[in-house]
Structure formats: structure tokens, C-alpha cells
């Protein structure tokens, strides 16, 4: 049986998306006449997304979130390891099949929509790529989807420049959903939006998830948004997932010192609490120069001798795991 024709039963039973020990390196230039160096953007990451889950992926910029997302979308081959979509290795699946199952919504709706195409044409494109229907059916489908994401049908012939940021993000969501994918990878879907528009988009994503049975991988640096949306959270630091737990456990009792610092940095609107001291120091991690041992040790408030030389192994903890010497090496 060809990979292109997965049956509904096969899709139902398998984990939606799985990364198995995935790594990705880039060769980067460090200057004229200097030799190229290897940047380890993602190193040995394993992540499982089950049907119906909302998995939050958090971490600072440069930690490899977006590289991981691009690999999960099939846009970038991993240098090592394997990505599976509904149980099939993506390396063996045609692009078009991956696109049918997994779709992205990107951060910036100003640059992710082609300014020279009408709204209708933008949302129709995935249908044309998949083929197999006529333009009248497409138009009906597109208009139905526009309505569903809260765009007036009358905007069909408008251009992105005529829309507000929130409306553009709705167009991006409609385009992602038009082929009824199973999984949507949202990479900072509301970071470029005002708070009043952010809440509308978050509400819409929740509604669509309920109505269409979607699974989300939500990448965000906004922990309040992740706490609100996600059922499970993975915390990335310098290319590795250092802690994974269900949302309640992670926010109630964060284990990894980095997760603790991240959560401490969330500024909730509670006057009088002041700005916390995160104890992280001013040293910013450099992915070109990953520290030996635990990669977090130069910024860690609880650093021990072992952390400087030995990389911690994941330790199971509840439903998830934590990668830190404080919790013992099995």
C-alpha cells in the first residue's frame, strides 16, 4: 500500500506526530577566512504528540523551537533521527501527504501572506495543490472556511494589505485548515498581535480544535498563553528538551531550574509583586558554543560539580521527564 493512501483507521490509531532522537546541525560561517563551524540547533530530541492534545513548546529565542517545528512540518530534513507522522516516517511520505496531515500557522501574518494574491486565492491554494475538484466547489469550501474563522465572505476578493493583523491571522488559519489537517503547528501565532486581538485568535483556535477535532503543537515564548492553551508542555533549552510534563504539574511544581526561572519571569498583572529576580545572570547561551556537561550549568543557581562535566540523562517524573542532576541520574 502506498504511503499516499493512509486509511482513516490508520490515521486514528497512530500517534499524531513523533520525533525520535532528532538532531539538526547547520554549518555556519563565522567570518571571512575563518573555517565554518557546526551549529547544533536541535540535539537528540524526542517528542510525542497524541491525537487531541495541545502540546506547548516553550524556550528562549535560539533554543531550536523553530528548527524543530520546520523539521516536524517536513520543511527541513533532520541530520539524525526520525520524524513520524501518524506512524509513518516522513522521509518515506510524499510532501503532499504530509501537507494534508500537518499544517503551519506562523507568527507574522504580515509576511506569511502573499501580498499580490487575493484572500480567496490564498486560502484556495492548498486545495489546488491537492487537486481533484473544480473551482466552484473550491469557492464554496473556501467561503465556508472563511465564515468558520470569522472572516466575512465579502473579503474574498480583498488583498492582505486591506486587512488588520487579526484578520490576516484568521486568513492564515483558514489556509491551514482548508484541507482539514489533523495537526496544526502554531509558531508564535499571536506574538505579533495586540492583546485584544490575541484573545480573539486564542478563542478561535480553541473553538476550532473542539469543532474539528484538531491537535495542536503550540510554540510560544508567552507562558501565560501556553498555560491557557496546552495540555502538556515541553521546555527547550539550547537544542534539547530539558523538561516535559502535563501543564498542571509543570506550572504547579516546575522541576528543572530553567523551567523555574522561566515561570518566575512570567509577569502576571498583579500590582505590588514587583519584578522578580530570575537569578539567571547576564550570560546568554550561545548555540555555537554549547557548554560541556549540563548545557544550562553556567546560568544555573543550583549548579554542582557534576553539572560541569557530565550531561544529565532524562529522569522520569510523573507523566513526563526532567533532565537535571538534582533529580538523580538513573
Amino acid at each position, binding site marked *: 500500500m502506498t504511503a499516499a493512501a493512509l486509511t482513516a483507521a490508520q490515521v486514528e490509531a497512530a500517534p499524531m506526530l513523533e520525533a525520535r532522537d532528532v538532531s539538526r546541525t547547520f554549518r555556519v560561517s563565522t567570518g571571512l577566512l575563518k573555517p565554518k563551524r557546526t551549529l547544533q540547533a536541535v540535539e537528540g530530541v524526542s517528542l510525542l504528540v497524541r491525537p487531541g492534545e495541545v502540546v506547548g513548546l516553550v524556550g*528562549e529565542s535560539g533554543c531550536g523551537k523553530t528548527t524543530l517545528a520546520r523539521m516536524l512540518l517536513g520543511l527541513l530534513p533532520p541530520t539524525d533521527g526520525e520524524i513520524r507522522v501518524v506512524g509513518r516516517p516522513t522521509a518515506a511520505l510524499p510532501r503532499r501527504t504530509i501537507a494534508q496531515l500537518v499544517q503551519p500557522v506562523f507568527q507574522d501574518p504580515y509576511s506569511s501572506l502573499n501580498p499580490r494574491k487575493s484572500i480567496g486565492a490564498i486560502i484556495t491554494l492548498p486545495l489546488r495543490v491537492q487537486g481533484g475538484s473544480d473551482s466552484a466547489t473550491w469557492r464554496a469550501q473556501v467561503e465556508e472556511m472563511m465564515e468558520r474563522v470569522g472572516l466575512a465572505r465579502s473579503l474574498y476578493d480583498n488583498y492582505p494589505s486591506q486587512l488588520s493583523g487579526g484578520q490576516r491571522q484568521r486568513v492564515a488559519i483558514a489556509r491551514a485548515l482548508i484541507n482539514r489537517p489533523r495537526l496544526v503547528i502554531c509558531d508564535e501565532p499571536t506574538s505579533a498581535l495586540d492583546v485584544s486581538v490575541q484573545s480573539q485568535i486564542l*478563542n478561535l483556535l480553541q473553538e476550532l480544535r473542539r469543532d474539528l477535532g484538531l491537535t495542536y503543537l503550540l510554540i510560544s*515564548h508567552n507562558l501565560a498563553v501556553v498555560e491557557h492553551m496546552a495540555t502538556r508542555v515541553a521546555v527547550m533549552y539550547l537544542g534539547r528538551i530539558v523538561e516535559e510534563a502535563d501543564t498542571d504539574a509543570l*506550572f504547579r511544581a516546575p522541576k528543572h531550574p530553567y523551567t523555574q526561572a522561566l515561570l518566575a519571569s512570567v*509577569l*502576571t*498583572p*498583579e*500590582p505590588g509583586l514587583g519584578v522578580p529576580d530570575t537569578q539567571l545572570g547576564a550570560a546568554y547561551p550561545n548555540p555555537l558554543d554549547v557548554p560541556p556537561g549540563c548545557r544550562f550549568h553556567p546560568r544555573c543557581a543550583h549548579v554542582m560539580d557534576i553539572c560541569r562535566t557530565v550531561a544529565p540523562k532524562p529522569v522520569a517524573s510523573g507523566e513526563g521527564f526532567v533532565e537535571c542532576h538534582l533529580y538523580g541520574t538513573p
Partner: protein
Amino acid sequence: MSERILTVDNLRVDLPVPAGTLHAVQGVSFHVDRGETVCIVGESGCGKTLTALAVMDLLPARARRTAQRLELAGRDMLSIGERAMADIRGARAAMIFQEPMTSLNPAYTIGNQLEEALLRHSRVSRRQARARAVYLLERVGITAAASRFKQYPHQLSGGLRQRVMIAMALMCGPSLILADEPTTALDVTIQAQILHLLAELQREFATGLVLITHDLGVVARIATRVVVMYAGEVVETGTAAAIFSRPAHPYTRGLIACIPVPGRTRRGAALGTIPGMVPSLVGKSIGCHFASRCDYAIDACRSADVTLEAARDAGHLVRCIRHAELPALAPTRVAEAAP
């Protein structure tokens, strides 16, 4: 009575646009005392950045600024000339912008730019300027400050660049710092560090701080007083405690209901929303600017301009004719996420 650093009274900024005149800032008034942090909060396009630029006389050339009063540390800034203003800028009042990369000169070293800030304004030797720069770099948490001195802006991370900007703002010991979204481009961990640092230095040097942001979390944690702007106007102002525990304007209430708060909003529950869009500020308008999006708007809101009135707490002002009866009215949309 504490020392008044900045007085802004009835500030207006008009911008000519093809369709007419855009009234970007419409009679904004606020003041900053020594040692105070005043946060100007609002969504994009509400006029908060133009307000700051108007105070610093850094508006684009086509913009027209008028005000009843604009005083910095007792000096009238409306009548002084270009040269005198250049002496004030940097020395008495410093500005920190959102993206430090665009406000640092890529062709000069960090040290050079820091020294320059002091040498431009005071009669000190380069050696003295360097000593102060190194001291301040250390104060803003940059280790090995002396070696950073020879580095260029592109060699630093975003967080370090913003620290350099803060050090630069402090070089001349200004009475007022205006920071426009200083942490918006940074990671949350770095944001917390930078704000922690700003608050600490502001206490230590007793400067007045005006912080412009759209992030209500930042406002709640750092502000002494809050100025909420909507469509070019101040719609509410008061202490941080009053604004967050007893928001009086429907817009402020709506904004607070929009944001998810870990441990407070129920996971997955619908967040509050503010329907509709910000009205166009081109041409003359009458009535409350928020009326078209407000759940409580009545005819009287649309027929006459609304002035700032005193709300319950001292110093708490609100631009809403129904603010007194609001708590008794059933909110239609904000129920779900309210504390």
C-alpha cells in the same frame, strides 16, 4: 510634595495625511514626580509612542505639536530652541527605544558611544567619561565591562544591547528616562532581568521613569501610576493598585479580561474580547472614542465629548460618563475571565 520632573498638559499631535489631518494625540495630560514610574499602556496606534516622542521633541518633521504646558524639571520646553533642546536631550531626559540595534551606531564601539553621551554634555575628560561608562556597564550587569568596551553593537546579544542602552541613558544622570517598549523584543527571562534592573536603578538614582508598553503584566509589576490610552486620548489614569483592582473604564476592564493569567483564568475557557476596531482618528469626531466597541454605550456617549472625571480612589480619573454605575451593570462579555 515630591519634586515634579515632567508636566504634560493638553498635549496634541497632528499629522497631515492624504485624507486630512490625523489627530494622533488629543489633549494628553500627565505628570511624573522624582522616583516615580509612570506606565503609558495601550494598543498599537493609540498614540503612546508619539506622546513620548513629542515630549522629547523627536517627532517627524511633518507632525505638529501643541500643548498648554510642557515642562521638564521646571524648564518650559515649548519655548526653547533646537540647540537648547539638544542640550536637554540625553543630559536631563534620556530615551530608550524598543530595538537597541537601531539606536546604537553599528560603526562605533560600545565604549565610544557611551563616552560620547557624557562628553557631549559635560566638561569631563575622556578618562573620566570612560570610568563612568565602565562603572555603569557593571551596574547594568555586564561582566568584564572593560573588554566589552571595544566591542561593536553587533557582537552583543539583544539583552546585552538593551543593557548598554540603559547604561547610556544613565551616563549624564538624567532626571527623566522615557523607555518605549524596552523589553518587547526580548525573551521573557531577559525581560524580567531588564525590568528588575530598571526598577532598581530608578530607585537608586531617583530618576523619573516613563515606561511605554502594551503589556499589562509589565505595567502591574513596575508602575507607580498608570496612564491608559485609547485612540489618542487618556481614558483612565490612577495608581497601579486602583487600575488593576478597580478598573473604571470599560476599555481598561476589557483589556484586563483579554489576557490569560496562570492560576486565575480557567484553562481553555474563552478569554474576554473587545469587538470591533479602533476608530479612524482622521478628521473631527464627537463623543466617546470607545463607544462603537463598548458594551455599555448609550446615546449620551455618542452625542457629546467626554471629559476625565474623578473616580472612587484619590487621583483616579476616568473618561466615561457611566463609570459610577458600571460595577452594578452586568458585564456581557468580561464575565468569563474576570478575577
